[in-house]
């Protein structure tokens, strides 16, 4: 599974999950989509940080 394929699946999936997760916080589709987009960026950012941290740990302690 290539990195591009993983990203192509992961990011839209996170957005769709965030749409449902953020649904109670707004009454309109526009409001929900706006909150979900912000949450998606946040989650994807944290995912990059976690993956980078795991790769760093692997490089340092698991030669």
């Amino acid at each position, binding site marked *: *599974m290539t990195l591009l394929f993983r990203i192509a*699946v992961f990011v839209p*999936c996170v957005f*769709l*999950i965030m*749409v*449902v*997760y953020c*649904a*109670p*916080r*707004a*009454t*309109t*589709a*526009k*409001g*929900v*989509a706006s909150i979900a987009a912000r949450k998606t960026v946040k989650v994807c950012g944290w995912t990059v940080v976690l993956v980078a941290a795991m790769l760093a740990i692997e490089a340092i302690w698991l030669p």
Partner: protein
Amino acid sequence: MQPLHALLATLFVPGSAHFVLGRPVRAVVVALTTIGLFWIGYSIVGTHMWYHELVPSTGGGIRGLLFRIFPVMMLPESPNLGCTMVASMMRDIDSVEAMRLERMPGGLVHLGLLLTACSGVLNALWMCDAHWLAQNREPRAKIAPPMAALASWLLPGSGHVLAGQRDKGLLLGAAVLVMFFGGLAISGGHAVDRVLADAWFDGQVLCGTGVIFGSLVTAPLRYDALPTYNDLGITLCTVAGFMNLLVMTNAYTVAEDGPDSVVVVEEAKS
């Protein structure tokens, strides 16, 4: 009738609480969609249904006895506890022949397992309905909360549309269905298959449209080898099922508090 009593009565005898609460027609509908579906499904699959229990209930001891009386390990059928209990009591658990039969799938197995599963999910929703009716409350939307949740199970997002949040309902429905059918497409149509992936099916069944389509249309299709991304497809369909559980819960809340109620929450947070 107390709401809790209505809930418990429906758990054991579907339709009984609705009848006592003065809704005889709805009681008949409840009985048909729970007891009726369960026994049609059970007459198709028979004891093979027990092959899909989450925890093996065979063997003696107190644990075996409790599981035999209260088959709560039989998801998603167990919310229809009365029917599942009767079927469990009729089960021949001790003989080798019976165990062999449980392992043997027959014809129309996907249809039979779908019907028994749907009876459990529907009874959970009818339990909510009985609880709501016993409270004697008026919904602030055009539709009663349990009906909004039921509509969302049948077609994700429709509960919001009926409760007055049209565009939000369409967005939520699209999100769930894109996730579900995306997973189904990635797996070549074999993500929803209770025979091969029964534990995952318990999550997938929370998305009514998807699981009915998957069980009836794609699951019976023949294939020589599992698709490359079958695991990914199964996961996406299961996540879509749990997403729809959130949608159903939110549809219930929107119908209960009114279509504008969450604006206050949003304004308070911002």
